């Protein structure tokens, strides 16, 4: 795994950069080819990689917070509330501010879930999961209502909700990279604590881990990653759930392996799926990348679930 994942990342990157709707001759690039490569394709590939890394890492972190392998940015409601923020921006015709609205929505949703799930200063994982699901449902309903209300914005809302990396710019890449670095570095020193957090709370705290403080930190880092990802690329399902699961089934169960691996694995997966999304159809047409992640990812995950039932059984 230590060699496979970085190799997969490099391969996915090379493949994603070299293939596309326009063929580029790398050895003698024309002016237009150079523009396509550096202004369109490269920022897009990088954004795909970064969003994949961010979503996978946020999934892992949410799973530690909730002690539940089903937790990710969806079940916590952060994705849906970010999307709600973005859809409000679309409704108001404030396209350039979509990321900002998504961030605001994500943080608002996060704060709500956090307040509901905290009792006497402690986060209750189950309450949080329930609150997240309720928030998700509520946000989805709100989005549907807004779609119903506005005839002219419907298509752009739907398009945005499907998710994608078409709107990539170097600046977005840079900001998301900074967010990932910040989140990752803030939890990097806590590998051993994260492993201990997998025990029940009594065992974890009597081992010397300040369970509650650690949970808050993980929670905010994960939410930050999700809000920025959704803001830049819309809702892309499943990455935060399947990438960590596949890695754990590949025996990367300790945080010191799982966290870095989720970054590389998520990035490689997303670059590859985006490559498929933009090259599978003829004539420069694109499939929404969310369709690919959910279908390929879903089928593969189902296969793993059935194949590796025994390992999953011993998860709990």
């Amino acid at each position, binding site marked *: 795994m230590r060699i496979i994942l970085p190799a997969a990342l490099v391969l996915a990157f090379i493949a994603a950069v070299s293939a596309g709707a326009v063929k580029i001759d790398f050895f003698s690039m024309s002016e237009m080819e150079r523009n396509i490569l550096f202004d369109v394709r490269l920022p897009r590939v990088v954004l795909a990689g970064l969003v994949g890394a961010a979503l996978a890492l946020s999934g892992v972190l949410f799973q530690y917070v909730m*002690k*539940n*392998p089903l937790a990710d940015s969806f079940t916590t409601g952060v994705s849906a509330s970010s999307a709600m923020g973005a859809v409000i921006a679309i409704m108001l015709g404030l396209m350039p501010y979509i990321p900002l609205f998504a961030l605001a929505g994500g943080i608002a949703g996060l704060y709500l879930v956090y307040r509901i799930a905290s009792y006497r200063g402690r986060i209750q994982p189950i309450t949080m999961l329930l609150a997240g699901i309720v928030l998700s449902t509520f946000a989805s309903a709100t989005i549907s209502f807004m779609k119903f209300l506005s005839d002219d914005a419907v298509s752009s809302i739907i398009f945005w909700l499907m998710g994608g990396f078409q709107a990539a710019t170097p600046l977005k890449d840079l900001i998301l990279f900074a967010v990932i670095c910040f989140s990752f570095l803030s939890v990097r*020193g*806590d*590998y*051993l*604590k994260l*492993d*201990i957090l*997998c*025990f*029940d709370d*009594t*065992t974890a*705290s*009597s*081992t*010397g*881990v*300040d369970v509650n403080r650690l949970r808050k930190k993980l929670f905010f880092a994960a939410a930050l990653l999700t809000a920025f990802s959704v803001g830049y690329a819309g809702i892309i399902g499943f990455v935060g759930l399947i990438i960590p699961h596949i890695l*754990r089934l590949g025996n990367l*169960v*300790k945080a*010191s392996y799982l966290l870095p691996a989720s970054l590389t694995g998520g990035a490689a997966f997303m670059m590859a799926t985006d490559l498929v999304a933009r090259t599978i159809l003829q004539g420069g047409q694109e499939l929404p990348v969310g369709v690919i992640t959910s279908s390929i990812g879903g089928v593969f995950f189902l296969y793993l679930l059935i194949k590796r039932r025994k*390992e999953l059984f*011993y*998860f*709990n």
Partner: protein
Amino acid sequence: MDGLHIGKGGLIAVLGNNGSGKSTFLNVMSGLLEFTGGYRVNGRPFREMAQAESARLMGFLPQEAALNMPFDAFYVVLTGRFIHSDGRMYSRADIARTENVMKRFDVFHLRDRLFNALSGGEKQRVLLARVMNMDTDIFLLDEPFSGIDILHQIKIVDVFRRIRSEKIIMVVIHDLSFAIHHFDRFLLFRDGRLLYDMKRDDLSPEMLSEVFGVRVGFAEQDNRMFVYTEEM
């Protein structure tokens, strides 16, 4: 329970019926439950201590533990070294100690097995080894013998007896005969209160009857004390 003082040396059995306050007592001691009043450890008020500091002093084995990650038994025991690690990595010394502790508690052969795939008693022994791996001065063990076979109960209590002179080991236990044979001091709980705090030789059947609400009698055979119980 004003004025309770517990010093090193001697195995301490915490006895009482369900709901009599044994677990609450241990939970409060280890700082996991809020409490009124106060107590001191090594002369320092416990309330002033941070989580990491109290974990360095006290190892606590809860009655029920759960793990939701497929760690092997070795790693489970290794996590007991957390307070002694630099927080980022376990050292060679931590690993060597873990092997030692696992051998001492006869769970070394389980080291590569998934913790969650072990039987109930094996899990309990691994968790006990984990707590002992914390190498603290004080051990608070809530029913460590539950689910463990007799052979291993005796092995475990032998380990306790060997290290008892330099440690405080408090154990919640239900087997009266076993407790009276192996333990030195007895904290007897009833209805949420510490009713008696006795050395072994000062225990009487009457006291135990009062604590447990059953008729308790002592019988001696081959220089060993046996306890029998019957309905009042």
